[in-house]
């Protein structure tokens, strides 16, 4: 996992919605992104300065999911955040 020092961009605002889901808005592009519950957990983890490995650990501790699957899922979400320039290196 190479993206252990990522942090949310200052140009991105996140808000909770409907329990666990969330919305991100990129203030530079004015694009909105809807996050499912897992993606919101990842985003909040990054906001709290956690590494990807720590986020995976949180997820496996709180949800019934195999570690291998959690790693893949979290990495895919982080990759998407990077693709859309929603996160950056610390």
């Amino acid at each position, binding site marked *: 996992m190479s993206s252990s020092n990522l942090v949310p961009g200052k140009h991105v*605002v996140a*808000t909770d*919605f*409907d329990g666990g*889901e969330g*919305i991100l*808005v990129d*203030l530079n592009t*004015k694009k*909105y992104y*809807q996050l499912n519950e897992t993606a919101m957990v990842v985003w909040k983890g990054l906001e709290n300065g956690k590494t990807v490995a720590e986020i995976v650990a949180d997820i496996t501790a709180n949800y019934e999911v195999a570690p291998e699957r959690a790693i893949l899922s979290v990495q895919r979400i982080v990759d998407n955040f990077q693709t859309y320039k929603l996160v950056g290196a610390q």
Partner: protein
Amino acid sequence: MLRDLKGWLPVDAVVVNGRPGLRWMDMAGINLAEPFFQQTVARAKAENNRGELFTEFDVLLQLERVLDSVTPRGFIFHSSRCGSTLLANACRAVSNSIVLSEAPAIDKLIARFITDAAEGGVKESLYSVFLRGVVHALGQRRNGNEEHLFIKFACCSFSQIERITRIWPDVPWLFLYRDPIETIVSNMTDVPPWLIDNDRRVLASITGVSSEAASVLSLEELCARTLGSLYSTAHRLATCNSMLLNYNQLSVPVIANVLSFFNVHPSTEEMDTIARGSGVYSKEVSGTHEFIADAEAKQKRASDLVREMAATWAIEPYRLLEQKRLQSNNLRAVSRS
């Protein structure tokens, strides 16, 4: 930019150069004292040159993080021309209250659930977040001592009650309604903007017809169908977190009961103010025109078409709603005894 918006309120949801967003106005020092939000905005505009600006909706998400705001305490929904303004005025009589009475930014965002957001789609979530943000911005503590926030919605917004209660599941809500013939007569005597809106999508959605079909219906039929739909929605969705109230029940003790349902307990002085307010015409800004009961007069004035449309579309849903209200009142009485 965000700091500069403290004391500003989103007074309308608009589209500027193809960009949907909000029109804000500097409302510093302006209390929302009038029966309708727009009347307060008109007063603010008339008093002096108030600053105005346009922003896109994303500002709401940022403001939610920085503005100190009051959480909603009670929602007032209604079927039009049935005493909801009287109730809103009563809420306003309680010290440290903010009453948002048919604020356009709120009701226009709710309308977009119908016109621009498929069920379960991204836009539904987006508009939900924006709606929460607009209420947060409108409910900001501008004096510092505000404690209660009440929202009275436009009548058509009740059709989106399920989406609204998803955002605020714990806020108690009330649905106020009136005999359909009296309501239709009132709406035909003084036709409200919602009934003659050129964009028929909202009414089409409420009444279950196409926009094209809605545009050729008589106003009597459109009104009757809308009422029937709102009554049915209330009948279907009223729960223990909601209250059904008929116009013909309205009295000072019942208003006190509504406030108690919203977990607000007015002082004796505040109840005196409410009692005085119940004796005047509630929608008039000066509050000096005496209220005259007109149920009988409206029944007599109803045309054959009004009676026919009410009978076809609204009377049975009204009867069922009344039945539910009376049953729930009986249950409350039993649970108290």
